[in-house]
């Protein structure tokens, strides 16, 4: 059977606290995250055969990882695919294990944004250094604000109700974050606080936007056969999916801008591989790319959790809360972790991995189907995105 389903196992994961780490370098964070993963897996650094390294501004070369960890001359590939970088690195590492090229590899993502002043991705884009620069560039809040404007306009949602729906998502994620010692923001907020916060890009306010943070996360992966030698509660990769856009939001004048097609494609690819037909019923939890609350709202629909146009109602009904029908962003999401770009995807997998193992503490959800989804989204709905999804399941699930 094509694909990576049940061919790759995660045996160890690590994740630093996501924070303003003024006293730590990116290499400190890498060492902390990777050594937590090594210890969790019960492997020695010297056992690692190859590695994939995900970072946007934290080290442009594969060797950056070996430099931090002093791994001896192993191959390291650096992967950069905007906010989906960690998923992309993970997926490529999975391919290497699934095809038999390596049987024990490391994936690490890290970012140190707080050393860099205020990074404004989108205003300048190192991926396109030679263009004429006449085109409108913009920071992400402005792009996602347009998604909110269109969503509300398209479905005839009054702005007050629309903002309240978004605020409920922020309140939910902040509550979940308040239960997570690794989150940057561990404070629950009220609906009123969220609604009264300063506007960042209308209609998005402060609590609709994720923060800028430092952090690192890592995974040690191997074959299922080998995984058994290390632990019983290893986690299998059930399905992966990825989709890259082509700037359709800017090109096509009948593009509705109420949905992110890349999300739809990437999730269906992963569902097919994982054998998921009803994600709302079959998934135990989902950790998705809530860079902005409107992104999470649209993801509910893009991923088939909510019917088109119904996500606001489901939010109001509490479907996605910690005790709801399908808990989303149980760890607090980007909302509470911030978004060290190259690390976020692995941070999400860390949460699903711990939840599936029953080690999520006060955030523990019921994992009756033993399936959890992770998702990152790089780019914006106005230009285009890279969406990546990885579905993880407990051994035997």
């Amino acid at each position: 059977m094509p694909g990576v389903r049940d061919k790759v196992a995660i045996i160890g994961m690590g994740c630093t606290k996501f924070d303003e780490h003024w006293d730590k370098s990116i290499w400190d964070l890498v060492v902390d995250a990777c050594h937590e993963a090594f210890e969790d897996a019960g492997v020695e650094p010297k056992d690692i055969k190859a590695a994939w390294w995900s970072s946007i501004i934290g080290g442009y070369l594969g060797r950056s990882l070996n430099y931090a960890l002093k791994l001896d001359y192993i191959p390291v590939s650096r992967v950069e695919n905007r906010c989906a970088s960690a998923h992309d690195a993970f997926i490529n590492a999975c391919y290497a294990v699934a095809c038999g090229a390596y049987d024990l590899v490391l994936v690490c993502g890290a970012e140190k944004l707080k050393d860099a002043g205020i990074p404004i991705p989108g205003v300048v884009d190192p991926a396109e250094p030679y263009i004429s620069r006449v085109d409108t560039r913009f920071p992400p809040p402005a792009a996602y604000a347009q998604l909110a404007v269109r969503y509300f306009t398209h479905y005839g949602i009054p702005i007050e109700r629309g903002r309240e729906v978004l605020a409920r998502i922020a309140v939910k994620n902040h509550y979940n974050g308040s239960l997570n010692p690794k989150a940057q923001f561990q404070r629950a907020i009220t609906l009123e606080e969220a609604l009264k916060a300063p506007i960042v890009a209308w209609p998005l306010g402060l609590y609709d936007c994720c923060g800028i943070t430092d952090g690192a996360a890592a995974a040690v992966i191997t074959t299922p056969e080998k995984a058994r030698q290390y632990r019983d509660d290893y986690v299998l990769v059930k399905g992966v999916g990825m989709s890259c856009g082509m700037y359709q939001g800017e090109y096509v004048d009948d593009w509705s801008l109420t949905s992110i097609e890349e999300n739809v494609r990437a999730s269906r690819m992963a569902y097919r591989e994982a054998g998921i037909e009803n994600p709302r019923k079959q998934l135990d939890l989902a950790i998705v790319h809530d860079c902005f609350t409107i992104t999470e709202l649209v993801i509910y629909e893009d991923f088939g959790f909510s019917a088109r146009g119904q996500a606001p109602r489901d939010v109001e009904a509490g479907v996605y809360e910690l005790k709801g029908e399908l808990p989303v962003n149980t760890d607090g999401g980007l909302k509470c972790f911030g978004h060290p770009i190259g690390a976020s995807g692995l941070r999400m997998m860390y949460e699903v991995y711990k939840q599936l193992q029953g080690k999520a503490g006060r955030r523990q959800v019921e994992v009756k189907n033993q399936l959890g989804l992770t998702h990152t989204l790089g780019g914006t709905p106005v230009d285009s995105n890279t969406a990546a999804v990885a579905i993880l399941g407990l051994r035997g699930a």
Partner: protein
Amino acid sequence: MVGVVSYGAYVPRWRLSKELLRRGLKGEKAVAGPDEDSLTMGVAAALDCLKGLDRSSVDALFFASTTSPFKEKGAASMIAAALDLRRDVATADFGGTLRAGTTALKSALDAVKAGSARNVLVVSADCRLAAPGSAFELSLGDGAAALLVGSEGVVAEYVGGFFVADEIYDVWRRDVDLYVQSWEERFIYTQGYLRVLSEAINGLFKKLSVAPSDVGKAAIYAPDARRAVELARAVGMDPAKQLLDPMLDSIGCTGAAHALMLFTASLEEASPGSKMLIASYGNGGDALLFAVKEGVEKLKASRRGVRGHLAVKRPVPDYVTYLRWRGLISLPEPRVPMAVSYPSASAMWRERDRIYPLYASKCKRCGTVQYPVLGPSHRVCVKCKAKDEFEKVRLSDKRGKLFSFSYDFLRGVPIGLVNMEGGGRVFLELTDVDVRELKVGMDVELVFRRLELWRSDGIYGYFWKAAPA
């Protein structure tokens, strides 16, 4: 018959109240917005002038300004590109003197008369910088005018002109100067402006055997309202009846463009049969006489002109904002660690068709109009995937509807997706709008503006933005 075939004007909508400059002063002046300069104002006036006309009939474009954004680089060529004029259009940049506008007009008239061009577009704009606190700061304003000179469909026939050259240091700006300088006021008016322009206007009257009373309206460059009245009197005209209000308390003295703007304003109100005097000063004097013809009233309906622009205005909020727009106070450049990316001259050149006239691609197979995002690689149709099967469609003269918008405080620039009439979607900056007025579905038009790129870079980027229609 040679003369003016069409006219257009541009006045930036931003007005600086003189109260902000000196407590108790009345009136205001028009100032270019942060994304405007003489070149962009010139494009706006030219677009007003060319409305409904066949752009391919323009054989030459003359741009006149003392404040071209370039000391060395053709502004006229860029204006011609933005206007999508023919490739074989003759262009010339007139500068250096405040008479540049009328001198360009004279040259255009001469060219048409000589048969070397059928239609010549004369564009004049100025945006002169006065030292903060100086008297010039009270009087200088920004604006542009455009006149199409030809021999068919003439609405103001050229009767004749008289030109005087004069050497004097009265008002000047050296190559190293930021601000306009001048000698003391009595000297510059009595020995410069009044003496030389009287000589030019009297010379014109004598040459054409015209009596001062024959002039219907006089559009005279006026650095100062009182001096213009003195001048009109000195040449035998009745200032109250014949002198056109120099608009110093609504627009200001717009330098090389001033006389042409006043002339445009007078054509907006002219009736056939009257005679118009246009005179400009700057190291000499130019005086030209026109006779207004049938058809002038028809133009009024379709031209925004000086008066149309005057009716739309927004106040500059405070003096500091004005200083920032003029680059006289600079904030530190934002520190952006994601690699600073400067505009590339070769990329701009390669993409010139989609930047200056704003050409979109229309798929010959499926008909989808698509604006080439990131231009250089638009080879494949986004819908039907046909390769290299496009025809060009000009978007810059089309209106659009705002499909979505946003504004963030980090960059401080409103942006929006605009669906163009006839198809196509373009992602643009929005300008000349209060963000609180933005609404999905609002009508917008495209305006050519200077981009705020990296201040330390050596290239000015120019591109289209959307403004409320």
